[in-house]
């Protein structure tokens, strides 16, 4: 560590290198910390978490009971023991609360004045954080599994919402609906999937690129400016038609695809599927990079929300696997560690890039905070320090000179 600091100071190293090395070290030492707690408000499982981008201070959570809670993550008390308090909730008593389970919540990317939530009661609500009332409500025909707002969009303020409608005879196909926040109307629909769409993500690199994952085992990448269909479909065999059985040609997974995540630079896309596999794709060409993560247990019937670390090298993927969170190296595919602590299935996890902390929520109604633990500070005795007239460092009591020549 000292060598890194010296190298940065003398200009031998790029400043980014020290930051990345320290971030990586912190992520590798993530642990369940008994000092950090998050208020337990939800009565039913927690489906989704989101930390705001601007300050990293406020976290939203949405639960299966339709309740939405906002927490303050910052520790203003001087003590290490801290509980993240829930500042406000949209509880069951509120007039505007969602009737059924809230599937996705997301802060408005540019400030915390608005957040958007979508739920199984077929609505998507845009909330005003001050008054906790919906400023806008979008009604749909089918369950909304997921929605996402582009984190970098300047030219548009579109929210992509996903619908599935029950595939009965003669009804509509599952589609991706794009809604405009500025005008409050629905702009257009992206058609092409043949099964329920479980996850959607905007690319963090190009504000017009969108990726969707569906139960028909396909992942499609769209450019919303184009009138025709998707740009390309991700193919797990990279076009080698001989490897798959004929039904599985051109599919991203051999089962339902239920999780999507772009890396922070937008160059790669990770997908997870119910075939217990996770695949890494080049997001520009759609090529499968063939990194083998092994068996990533995935039994989720709806979308799985997983996350990738930011600012570390090598990057890490945090995937909920059953009742623990698995940490994999992104490009190496190795399982680094399993974070165990939940009592029931974990549904979502969110990475805090500034403090390298991980928050995960699951069916046991708990949100657990995984905090890096590096070195415990020695407990300094304040009084002895002042007596000695402030000698530089607190001496370990084992090395203290206990022999005294004074006689009482």
């Amino acid at each position: 560590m000292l060598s890194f600091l010296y190298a940065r100071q003398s200009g031998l190293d790029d400043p980014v290198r020290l930051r990345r090395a320290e971030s990586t070290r912190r992520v590798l030492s993530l642990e369940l910390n008994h000092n950090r707690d998050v208020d337990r408000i939800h009565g039913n499982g927690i489906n989704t978490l989101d930390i705001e981008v601007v300050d990293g201070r406020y976290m939203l959570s949405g639960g299966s009971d339709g309740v939405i809670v906002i927490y303050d993550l910052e520790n203003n008390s001087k003590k290490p023991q801290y509980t993240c308090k829930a500042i406000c909730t949209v509880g069951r008593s509120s007039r505007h609360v969602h009737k059924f389970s809230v599937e996705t919540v997301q802060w408005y990317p540019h400030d915390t004045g608005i957040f958007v939530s979508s739920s199984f009661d077929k609505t998507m609500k845009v909330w005003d954080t001050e008054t906790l009332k919906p400023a806008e409500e979008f009604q749909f025909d089918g369950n909304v599994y997921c929605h996402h707002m582009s984190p970098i969009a300047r030219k548009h303020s579109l929210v992509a919402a996903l619908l599935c409608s029950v595939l009965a005879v003669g009804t509509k196909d599952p589609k991706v609906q794009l809604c405009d926040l500025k005008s409050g109307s629905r702009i257009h629909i992206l058609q092409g999937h043949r099964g329920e769409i479980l996850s959607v993500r905007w690319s963090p690199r190009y504000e017009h690129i969108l990726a969707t994952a569906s139960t028909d085992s396909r992942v499609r990448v769209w450019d919303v400016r184009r009138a025709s269909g998707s740009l390309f479909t991700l193919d797990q065999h990279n076009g080698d038609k001989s490897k798959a059985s004929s039904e599985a040609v051109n599919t991203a997974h051999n089962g339902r695809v239920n999780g999507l995540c772009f890396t922070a630079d937008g160059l790669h896309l990770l997908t997870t599927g119910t075939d217990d596999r996770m695949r890494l794709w080049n997001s520009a060409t759609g090529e499968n990079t063939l990194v083998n993560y092994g068996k990533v247990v995935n039994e989720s019937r709806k979308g799985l929300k997983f996350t990738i670390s930011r600012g570390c090298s090598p990057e890490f993927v945090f995937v909920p696997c059953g009742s623990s969170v698995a940490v994999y190296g992104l490009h190496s595919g190795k399982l680094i560690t399993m974070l165990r602590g939940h009592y029931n299935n974990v549904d979502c996890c969110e990475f805090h890039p500034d403090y390298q902390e991980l928050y995960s929520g699951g069916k046991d109604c708990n949100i657990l905070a995984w905090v890096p633990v590096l070195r415990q500070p020695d407990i300094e005795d304040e009084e002895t320090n002042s007596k000695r007239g402030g000698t530089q460092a607190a001496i370990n009591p084992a090395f203290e000179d206990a022999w005294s020549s004074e006689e009482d």
Partner: protein
Amino acid sequence: MNRKRALIADTFCLTKKRKCAVDSVSEDSQDGGADIKSNLQYLMTLFSRKLFNDTLPPVVLKHQLYSLHNDKTLVDKQVNELRENGDLLMFQLGFDSEAFALVFAEDYKAKVLQGEDGRKTLGTVEKFLAKLLPNCSDLSFNKEKMLKEFLFTDSEITQLVKSGVLTVRDAGSWWLSIPNSGKFIKYFIKGRKAVLGMVRKSKYGEILKTELEGRPTTSQVKFQMKYHVHDIIGAELVECIQTTSGTLLRYVDGN
């Protein structure tokens, strides 16, 4: 002082190799440039030839290699390189979309020609092998490819299917396959189920790897125990835990 063992990134310091029990050291290859080919040859020796009266070439499954190496991506890469060179052939076995069988190209050619000796289909099979072996690394072929690229006629394709080199995949497309491999697959699935049952029925659903390898094989298990153990570890049907007494295999629920 915090004596807990923490994960340390490579940038900071060299990781000390943990002292594990003696038996795992001989099989694990910790060094980076480990040779996949030598591992394949080791696994091929575990294959019981006599069981099939020497009609089958030694077959290894790709995920058995994962039990010998930590880095799955590296294993995949090296296997693909060997396939590009034409040394190794890969087959889709059919009982699991992720289970691929690997056979050395020379062994495959020798056994197939040995099996075809004296039959009418010998000429067609020779022609097919000559086209296939140097540079084709496909797992399946469809009709256009067979007719146009390889210049086979319909009756020749029927002969190839009869001889066992091709298996029907779909109307108009075929998998590449090993002749007489049906028995192999049957014994393999039975044996895998029996070995997994042994792990599951042990106390607490876990058993030391050395103990499992030493258990006598039941009538269901036709292959060597080590062959099956590599298979269940590589396919992640059991969880591998390092303990001070060696590797422990714990049955994973949900299989």
